[in-house]
């Protein structure tokens, strides 16, 4: 009877309720420390990334000077272009120059177009980001919704339907789905404008401030342009949303159906919790894992969304970088790797911070 006896003394001796605030403060401090620690990793990781890619491009056979000069060019002409691009200098010298310039924010010029790589990236990366972030947001929404349905009502009609739907969507490559959507939604139904880029052909663009068209059009107070941009966003975002939504749905389903069989869910039911709370408990359990997958998808898409870029004439970074790779346009490749790498690392950082804030188990480990 140890515990039942002495109940009154214990009530009297109960400590004042200060622990709530004590528990709050370290939470934000932990997060801050984590962010700082991760940001410190950023420069060395990028340095390694740049060095590796610099060496790799050097190893690939082929000479951009030959490509620029054209097939009919003489040896002297090629030589002249090489000198002009600085390709005849020793590797170490070029590498050190490149590092110095990069630190100053100068990423060089494209061998072919002569455009500043930094400027191009400032215009193109935001366009790509807009697409990927919105696409992934849609994918997460679709995935969480359908996945929960499939896991929770595994035997229902709606669950079977979405099971079938996600199977079809998962097996379709993104460009095929994009083409289908263009055909149906633009060509047949005419619900959206033609997929010619971020704006219509007749639209007069605004001067880029942030590079994000959604923001820039609003900042310029051009409601019509904003609407036009939103309309142009629909198809590529829906394509991304459906393809990766199907993936997220599968993932959510497998994680959640396991979580729904966990003892904590049974205990929640045994305590008579409402079904929506029971489901919430299960979703909370898989939240961190889902977040990690979104971050991984983000990294993958930043580096490889070139097909949709091209399909929708998006003027994003993906197709531009692919062009650079095919032509051995070293500054373009380097710049892209640097930007995509930095963004990916930042995305993982955000994911880490979020899961630390969301999951007390992770928090206590750190």
């Amino acid at each position: 009877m140890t515990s039942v006896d002495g109940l009154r003394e214990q009530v009297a001796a109960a400590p004042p309720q200060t622990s709530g605030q004590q528990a709050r403060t370290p939470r934000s401090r932990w997060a801050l420390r984590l962010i700082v620690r991760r940001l410190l990793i950023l420069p060395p990781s990028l340095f390694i990334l740049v060095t590796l890619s610099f060496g790799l491009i050097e190893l690939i056979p082929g000479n951009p000077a030959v490509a620029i000069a054209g097939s009919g060019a003489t040896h002297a002409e090629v030589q002249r272009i090489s000198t002009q691009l600085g390709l005849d200098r020793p590797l170490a010298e070029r590498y050190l120059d490149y590092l110095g310039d990069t630190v100053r924010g100068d990423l060089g010029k494209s061998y072919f177009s002569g455009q500043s790589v930094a400027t191009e990236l400032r215009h193109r990366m935001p366009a790509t980001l807009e697409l990927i972030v919105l696409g992934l947001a849609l994918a997460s929404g679709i995935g969480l919704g359908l996945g929960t349905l499939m896991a929770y009502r595994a035997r229902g009609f709606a669950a079977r339907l979405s099971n079938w739907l996600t199977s079809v969507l998962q097996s379709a490559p993104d460009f095929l789905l994009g083409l289908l959507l263009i055909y149906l939604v633009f060509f047949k139904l005419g619900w959206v404008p033609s997929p010619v880029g971020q704006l219509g052909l007749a639209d007069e663009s605004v001067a880029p401030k942030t590079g994000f068209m959604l923001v820039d059009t609003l900042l310029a107070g051009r409601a019509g342009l904003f609407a036009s941009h939103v309309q142009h966003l629909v198809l590529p975002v829906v394509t991304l949303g459906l393809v990766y939504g199907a993936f997220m749905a599968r993932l959510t389903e497998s994680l959640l159906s396991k979580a729904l069989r966990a003892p904590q869910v049974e205990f929640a039911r045994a305590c008579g919790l409402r079904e929506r709370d029971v489901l919430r408990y299960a979703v909370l359990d898989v939240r961190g894992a889902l977040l990690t997958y979104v971050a991984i998808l983000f990294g993958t898409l930043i580096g490889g969304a070139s097909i949709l870029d091209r399909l929708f004439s998006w003027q994003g970074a993906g197709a531009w970088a692919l062009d650079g790779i095919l032509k051995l346009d070293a500054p373009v490749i380097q710049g892209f790797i640097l930007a995509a790498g930095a963004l990916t690392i930042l995305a993982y950082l955000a994911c880490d911070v979020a899961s630390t804030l969301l999951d007390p188990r992770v928090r206590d480990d750190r």
Partner: protein
Amino acid sequence: MTVLLEASNLSVNIDTPRGDLHVVEDVSFSLGEGEILGVVGESGCGKSTTVRSLIGLLPRGGRVTGGSALFDGVDLFAQRPASLRAIRGDQIGFVAQNPFGLLNPVLPIAKQFRTLIRAHRGGLGKAECASMAREALLRTGIHEPDRVLHGYAHQLSGGMAQRVVIAMATILDPRLLISDEPTTALDVTIQRQVLELMRDVVRLGNRSMILVTHDLGVVAQFCDSVIVMYSGSVVESGKVAEVFTHPEHPYTRGLLASVPGGGRGETLPPGGPPARFEPARGCQFAPRCSRAETLCSVEPPPTVSSLGGDRRVRCHFVEIEEATHGAPAG
């Protein structure tokens, strides 16, 4: 003693790819107010399924195929999901093994208490919920409830976690507490404390408890009555004092003899309760029973109830002995 729970002819099937698995068959028992009933048997004998079926917590594909369970005059099996949910946690509490797994890993304990309380008592404020939780934790022997309430499951020790679980299961003052191997995952030293705690919580409020366990020592020490299950059926039941001192069923005898150091007589032969895809024909224990004869594997054993009191034994031999001697054997 007023009867609180009366389960009659309870049967449960689980739908598997290989067909319907008969997990519980024709199980009857009754539980009085303030009584602690032990349910014992080897793993796989259907004891967990039996108690889970009472509150509608069967595994996927499981369903009650027959019988009734009158809880305070209400048939639990006839309830709609919503009203059964309202009974769970409020009038019937449930505790299972592995306390860490039972608590949500990412929500503060206080929030879990609040969700639970509000599921049954809508409209209660945060402060009221917190003070209820604090009281419940103190009752389960947690001296610093506020620290626990603001913490998370993984910060607790096993014994503490089980105390929190018991506090949750009993916070709304349920009349019946079902505990399914509540101490299996705990250290031996903690096991006793937790069991004593549960007994005290139950006794103090004149509540009843069903205690599922494979530990006969626990039954002997904490329970008033016991039902012994084998392969989905009750083979013997009655007051603990009688069943344990004069076991009638060969399986009960074997179980008791298998207790390390405490047993005499023949221990159980190796093996376990068989999984059945068809209703039982003869006695399920026959293949492992040293006394078994042809009759046992053909004819289902009768329930002998002439031993006095609440004693029930399902065995051909007990029936025969009863008929010959006309008095309790043993």
